[in-house]
């Protein structure tokens, strides 16, 4: 096991290094650039522009810039955002709790919806419940996520009004402006974005679990368990579900990095101050310290989570041998 972990960790570091190299190259070659903001300003003299370029280190050739960036990053200096001049890590840290809140609640809601629906759908295969659930899942997977979000806003925020004429559910932001902190307020603001995301994710998970469950239910050992006289509830939850959940662990594990990455569409539609929007805006302006910081952390998380998933899978399923 240790040898396996060691090997995988080394592979991870190598992959991360290659990813950072490619990403840095892409970002540095993008047209436009951070200096284009100053191009229109007639008061900027060429000396000023040259001085700023030198200050941001944009004069060096790309490979040298990469080496400098790598050296700084390994020493813990992730650089300052070229747009806001604050440390890149600070920009990320400001928005990370917001993203984790949104994505964490979404993940929870997704599992709470998908698992019961998936199980019931599999047990009651071909009944009206099954048809209803799979149609809903199909709809969820086919819906454009942003359209669904806008629809939710139109229905719950614009059309339907509460008792005082204000929108029934807030369609934007994390909390009501100017009002003191209140958990109820935060929850109200979470309802629409989480519904939008969870509906789409749960659809996928539910179908996956349903098919996994169906595979397991028709296995011989389940039939044996029934033949032994066990109650149906025991058969399903003790024997079948445990095995059916294993592939789901893979799915959830690989989805964990999204807790960090956020969801760009959701954040834009609901004006949620998260990492998705930070990354998008930084990429548009080729604010490479922030872009690289987000990408490196995100890549690292993906690699780490896939390693975690592999180890967990081996732990849960004795048939799997790692190495």
């Amino acid at each position: 096991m240790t040898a396996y972990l060691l090997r995988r960790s080394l592979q991870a570091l190598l992959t991360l290094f290659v990813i950072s190299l490619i990403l840095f190259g892409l970002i540095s070659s993008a047209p436009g650039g951070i200096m284009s903001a100053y191009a229109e300003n007639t008061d900027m003299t060429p000396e000023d522009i040259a001085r700023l370029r030198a200050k941001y280190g944009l004069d060096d050739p790309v490979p040298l810039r990469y080496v400098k960036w790598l050296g700084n990053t390994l020493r813990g200096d992730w650089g300052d955002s070229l747009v806001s001049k604050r440390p890149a890590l600070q920009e990320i840290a400001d928005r990370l709790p917001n993203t984790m809140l949104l994505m964490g609640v979404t993940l929870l809601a997704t599992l709470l919806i998908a698992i019961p629906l998936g199980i019931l759908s599999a047990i009651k295969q071909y009944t009206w419940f099954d048809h209803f659930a799979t149609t809903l899942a199909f709809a969820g997977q086919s819906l454009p996520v942003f359209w669904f979000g806008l629809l939710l806003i139109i229905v719950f925020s614009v059309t339907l009004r509460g008792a005082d004429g204000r929108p029934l559910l807030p369609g934007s932001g994390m909390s009501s402006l100017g009002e003191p902190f209140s958990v109820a307020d935060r929850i109200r603001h979470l309802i629409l974005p989480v519904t939008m995301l969870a509906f789409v994710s749960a659809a996928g998970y539910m179908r996956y679990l349903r098919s996994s469950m169906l595979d397991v239910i028709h296995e011989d050992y389940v039939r044996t368990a029934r033949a032994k006289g066990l109650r149906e509830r025991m058969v399903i939850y003790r024997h079948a579900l445990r095995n059916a959940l294993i592939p789901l662990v893979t799915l959830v594990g690989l989805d964990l990095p999204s807790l960090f990455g956020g969801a760009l569409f959701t954040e834009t539609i609901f004006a949620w101050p998260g990492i998705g929007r930070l990354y998008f805006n930084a990429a548009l302006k080729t604010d490479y310290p922030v872009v690289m910081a987000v990408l490196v952390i995100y890549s690292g998380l993906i690699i780490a989570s896939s390693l975690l998933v592999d180890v967990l899978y081996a732990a849960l399923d004795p048939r799997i041998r790692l190495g």
Partner: protein
Amino acid sequence: MPDTAGDLAALDTWDFNRAPVGTGPFIVKDWAAGEAITLEKNANYRIAGQPYLDAVIIKILPSREVGMQLLGTGEIGALWDLTEADFASLAQMQAQGVAYAAAVTGENELLVLNFADPAVDAPADPAAAPHPILSDLAVRQALQMGIDKQKIVDALLFGNVRVGTTVLPTGQFACPQPASIFDPQQAASLLESAGWKPGADGIREKDGKRLSLKIATTTGNQLREQTEQVLVEMMKAIGVELVIDNVPSDVLFAGWDSAGMRKHGAFDILLYTTGPGIDPDSHLFGNYHGARIPTAENEGTGNNYSRYINAEVDAAIDDAATITDVAKRKELYCKVAAQINTDIPRIYLYERLLITGYRTNLQGFVVSPGASDFAWGAQNWWLKP
């Protein structure tokens, strides 16, 4: 700035940048990055009894559409940086208690015509490398005559803006000029006399070369895309082929080092907005003076993308920069504006407005005369219950 703010060399890292101190009606209480800036009433404001509001929260929104929706539901009190294209939505939202205020900014949505050959990189003198089509004044005149600017204003902007006529539309140096005439017949005859005869597909030709021009503007802007389509139709009517080739705004406005197409002269016609600030010198010098043509020698300095050189215009701009008498300066600038309209390095389509939408319960809201500052007069704002 106060000495206590910090060491000048480390300007970028000052806390002052995120929590500035000033003498205005509100003070910054909190700045949640990407989310909102909360400003509280300044108890020591110089006018007793003001500001009337206890706090102003500036919410940072990702898009105008989200903002419009929040304005309609009442979650925000005012929304700035709206465009002329939003007039239709604003009119619809009047029933929900939304009003708007607009002021002329002094900028024009305009077409920049390249006098020099786009195949040559950043030429210093258009006479040495003239544009095969646009270096001819008759062609430029014909292009302007073929554009029905009023129709663009009426159809796309619901008649809410003025047709562009001059580089200096407003302010103390306003120099109104006669509007360009729309006469496609005369435009066609101008092109004929210049040697451009209609070809088989209706597009004019001269010496085997087609009268085909590329027009570029920023992508993702519906109003500009519609404007381009209207222009294509208008140009087709006089036998000119206009080919749309849009690029993202970062690319259009890129600097010299990023191979910016404006700086290097790699375009035929561009469509975007620009204009002078309160004092015209900076804009006129940068955009219309011969010394500000971006070249390799001056490292791409200047915004004279048309490569327009007119000795009289240069002299007038230089003179006006050295005298202080406003009346005399205005006379010189008006001479410049008139000459620009004669030489047509740029075609002014319409005057831009700065539009702010606000809810009708927000009283005392005025769009500032310079139309540059959203919060001008914030000490006068109050909310009607």
